[in-house]
């Protein structure tokens, strides 16, 4: 019994370590008296909703900062990137897994080799490149949505995951459909894809986490609040003086809520995806 109690005590101490920063953030966001907020930081009152509490910090963030714009930008660019990524990467993987054509093995090996290239090592050449690209009306892609979407759709690791999933699907169903005269596109769209839902979830979750938190690319290609995503808007607001910690924490809390809620709602999928995506060795 005492061993079990010790076990729970350890679990609880660790839970406190992981929860404390989030708790202080949410509690501080409601403290509209800045002086009181700072005073409370020196005691356990930092963790407690005490003193003057109100929604005023949240109202100020929504009214005076580009938070909502940044939230919309993040949701929009990430959703489009993830959706197009699932489509494009699974199509390429399907070609590699289900067609016999010359150069197939070499192409697969090349895509797997590309997995090792970190984005950080090509960010600057890519910046020079997108600065020169035509299309989408006008010269250069800076300060736009497409510059934050198009470079991140094709993703070697996602292609690899899709390829593994398609390669292990039983072929009988697809062969039966071919006998019935179904087109290759139809077989891919109505048989192979629906049978691969767990991989779709994995690819979507991993891409979502990577794109949602990215600060490097927005720092390079976005000027001003018009196209800024949440991490960049957070950095900008945090860097403004005089700093008002109550509003900074309200901004942070508002930025955290969507992903936290999403995670709590879809926890099972999240955990399975991280696990199956994590083990790529």
């Amino acid at each position: 019994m005492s061993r079990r109690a010790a076990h729970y005590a350890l679990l609880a101490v660790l839970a406190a370590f992981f929860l404390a920063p989030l708790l202080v953030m949410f509690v501080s966001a409601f403290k509209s008296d800045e002086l009181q907020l700072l005073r409370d930081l020196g005691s356990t009152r930092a963790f407690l909703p005490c003193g003057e509490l109100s929604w005023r910090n949240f109202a100020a963030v929504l009214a005076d900062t580009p938070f909502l714009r940044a939230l919309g930008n993040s949701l929009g660019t990430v959703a489009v990137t993830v959706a197009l990524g699932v489509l494009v990467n699974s199509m390429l993987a399907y070609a590699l897994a289900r067609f016999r054509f010359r150069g197939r093995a070499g192409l697969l090996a090349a895509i797997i080799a590309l997995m090792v290239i970190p984005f950080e090592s090509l960010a600057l050449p890519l910046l020079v490149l997108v600065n020169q690209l035509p299309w989408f009306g006008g010269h250069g892609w800076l300060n736009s949505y497409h510059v934050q979407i198009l470079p991140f759709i094709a993703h070697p690791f996602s292609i690899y995951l899709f390829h593994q999933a398609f390669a292990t699907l039983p072929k009988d169903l697809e062969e039966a459909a071919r006998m019935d005269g179904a087109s290759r596109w139809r077989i891919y769209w109505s048989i192979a894809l629906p049978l691969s839902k767990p991989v779709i979830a994995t690819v979507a979750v991993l891409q979502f986490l990577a794109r949602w938190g990215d600060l490097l690319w927005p720092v390079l290609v976005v000027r001003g609040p018009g196209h800024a995503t949440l991490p960049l808007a957070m950095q900008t607001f945090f860097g403004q003086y005089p700093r008002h910690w109550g509003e900074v924490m309200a901004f942070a809390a508002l930025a955290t809520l969507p992903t936290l809620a999403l995670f709590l709602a879809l926890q099972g999928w999240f955990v399975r995806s991280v696990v199956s995506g994590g083990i790529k060795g």
Partner: protein
Amino acid sequence: MATRSSETAPWCFAAPGLLLLSLFLVLPFLLAFLFSLTDQRLLASDALPTGFVALRNYARLLADRNVWAAFRNNLYFAAVVTPVQSALALGLALLVNRELPGARLFRTIYFMPVATTMAVVTVIWSLFYAPDPGLLNRLVHLLSLGAIGPRDWLRDPRLVMPAVMALSIWQGAGFQMLVFLAGLQAIPRDLYEAAALDGAGGWQRFRTITLPMLRNTTIFVLVTTTIQALQLFTQVQVIAASGASAPVNTFRTVVLLVVQEGFRNGRIGYASALSVVFFLAVLGVSGLQRALLRGRDGP
């Protein structure tokens, strides 16, 4: 079988992906090598045409104190974060792997920071590191029985990196915990039952069964954490952008230096050379992982 449609069909499926990969991954990757041999600027000007400079950028990298300092900062970060975060993650996984009521709840709590964006995490922790009343100063004061006075954690050159390490470990441990958890659950139960019949104690079972069976998982976690340490950017970028008085020399990482040289100073050629060196470092770490995984165990 080899009809015309079956020869063009695979390329129709592959075309969008291949096009995007070539344009946004292969091409900029090759450009990094190409630019690194030139004095390419971010803003091309007619007065200063881009020229071939051979290996001059690489020679300058070797002589640049900021480059050495940046790699040192990354190494320092990796040397602390990789072992500490991996050990913490393994401990968490072992704790929540026990079939006790509430284990799932604790797993959820430990994973919550992963669902919090890194830029936001850095901002939240900055409040703890605040100099005057600051939560951390108060805690250090209490734990040291008043011996250690208040510090300005994000402005003190010796304390910035440890501060960044702490918040990074807080955010990242939950993810690695899940990876370890998957590894733990793949260990066959009968191994433990057999060991228990042989009278092996808890620690002995951990050492002779759990750790060896987790070998590949551990290598994976150590390598990915090391690569993430090399990529360290968001945390230091937020702190660097948060005020002019941040002692950036003591926490500038390789990627932050790439951005400052290439983007702020416009020296694309020089920053590309640094990007190439950074890529080779990541490649080296991944190669090490392959070698280790191939090293001992069979299928």
